[in-house]
């Protein structure tokens, strides 16, 4: 089993983001297309968490008296951004559901009006 690196995390994040974009563009139904939003933001969140896990700020490097430089991870900004992206995805899906419901209602009313003529 190959060890996990930042590149493999980015590959998975890219696959999730592309799958979300594919779902958003391929589906004709508005609610099915909205389902692509959490996938795209989930992929972005995976990339952000991966950066936090495998990278550190340059200022976080601790120089010891020996020639060894010990890298210390900084604050988990990527995890924070992933949490915010996940909550924003839920809000966007709720907003999309509301807009799609409103559009379906308007379309149904127009169809009824057309039928009554």
């Amino acid at each position, binding site marked *: 089993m190959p060890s996990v690196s930042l*590149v493999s995390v980015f590959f998975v994040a890219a696959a999730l983001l592309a799958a979300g974009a594919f779902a958003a563009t391929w589906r004709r139904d508005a609610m099915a297309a909205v*389902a692509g939003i959490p996938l795209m933001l*989930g992929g972005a969140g995976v990339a952000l968490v991966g950066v936090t896990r495998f990278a550190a700020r340059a200022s976080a490097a601790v120089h010891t008296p020996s020639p060894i430089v*010990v890298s210390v991870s900084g604050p988990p900004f990527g995890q924070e951004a*992933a949490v915010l992206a996940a909550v*924003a995805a*839920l*809000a*966007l899906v709720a907003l999309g559901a*509301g807009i799609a419901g409103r559009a379906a209602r308007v379309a149904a009313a127009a169809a009824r009006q057309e039928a009554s003529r």
Partner: protein
Amino acid sequence: MDSLHSVGFYASAAVAVVAALLVAVLPGRGTRALALFVAGVGIGGIDLALSAGFAAGVVVLTFAGCAALIARHDYRSFDFTTTFGWRQLGAVAAGALLLGLAYAAYRGSFSHVTFNGGALGTAAVGRLLFAHDAVATDAVAVLCLIALAALTVTWRLRERGER
């Protein structure tokens, strides 16, 4: 990263990517919502393998909420009036996006460091959310409030229209 975390990462990644593709191609809204929830569990597993337990919990909860919204019983279908050619163009663009991002990740040069943040990181993320980046947290909270208000107004209007 030890082998147990590596196995967890790759297994969760496979589950997440396959479920994400199923979200795009499955026909029924219930099965699509289930696939979305499974994708959320997979992404949560990835986050957990990457020592982001708190983010994993939030991701699973939000994907469960998204799946519940998509699988609503009063769901009404509303189709975009896009032609098949535009949808095909979007699918090809999604494939090109995947290739571009994968190429950028493959060609990138990244440093590798030791992570000392623990398995969950709840306290550190909470400090960032509510102290360091409180404006960003407030912005997302306002977005949630607007979305919930819009959803509630839509449901109320629909209920009145059906009576």
